[in-house]
């Protein structure tokens, strides 16, 4: 008999792989005649999807879901911090350029 945690972990893995393969579609949308073109929307979407995956890995694979509140909040804060830093630098860089 398959334990219930195996089923849950399998679905988590499936979601993570699904998000990963969605990048192929995103790339297809951002490439015109085989030449990649600059796109702020694609950049922001790619970073946000990656951060969602990081949070899922932390919550489910790293078992933060059942950890004390402090670790739950701290890891969530860290994901937001990474996102704000990367997107902030990207937007600031675009403005300067």
């Amino acid at each position, binding site marked *: 008999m398959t*334990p219930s*945690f*195996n089923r849950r*972990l*399998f679905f*988590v*893995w499936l979601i*993570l*792989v699904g998000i*990963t*393969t969605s*990048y*192929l579609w*995103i*790339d297809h949308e*951002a490439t015109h005649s085989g*030449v*990649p*073109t*600059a*796109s702020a929307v*694609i*950049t922001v979407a*790619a*970073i946000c*999807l*990656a*951060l969602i*995956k*990081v949070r899922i*890995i*932390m919550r*489910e*694979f*790293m*078992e*933060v879901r*059942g*950890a*004390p509140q402090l*670790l739950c909040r*701290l890891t969530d804060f*860290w994901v937001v*911090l*990474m996102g704000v*830093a*990367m997107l902030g*630098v*990207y937007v*600031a*860089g*675009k403005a*300067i*350029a």
Partner: protein
Amino acid sequence: MPGQPDMWVFVLFESLVFTSYFCVYLYSRTQHEASFLRSQAHLLLWLGVLDTVVLLTSSWAVARCVQHARTGWYEQARRDAWVAAGLGFVFLVLKIFEWVRLIHFGHTFTSSQFFQYFFFLTAIHFVHLLIGFVVIGVLILQLKDPKRRRQETVETCATYWHTVDFFWVLIFALLYVVR
């Protein structure tokens, strides 16, 4: 708390270090967008997707290892750890293949700014993965010996392996997908 608190301090600290690398890369990218796009076009996205799926599957195996160890099914937990190590090895082979292919076509550390970041970020991740093999080795030894088995150590080792996985998730998005 899953694993030792010290490992979590390490994870959060390393996340900040990698985030700072990513920020420098993203800033450079915005200043030389056309050049970065030209270089990026030489990467194979499907290979990056394959790398990611391999590492995610390896992480899944480690997550199962932790849960099997918790239920006392140590034989299965050890098998999961071997699967994780095997998939980690597949990732290393894919990465070396990608480096050799790029260098063969003249894309080296000094050929463009994009490839400088590409080789730096993938190499630093590679080093973390090599350390991960030592960690998985400790995990397998712990699971083998009934006198040494401690769930906290199993979880600590798993936390490190997952961290290497999520660093790659970010590196993949930034190097292969962003435009």
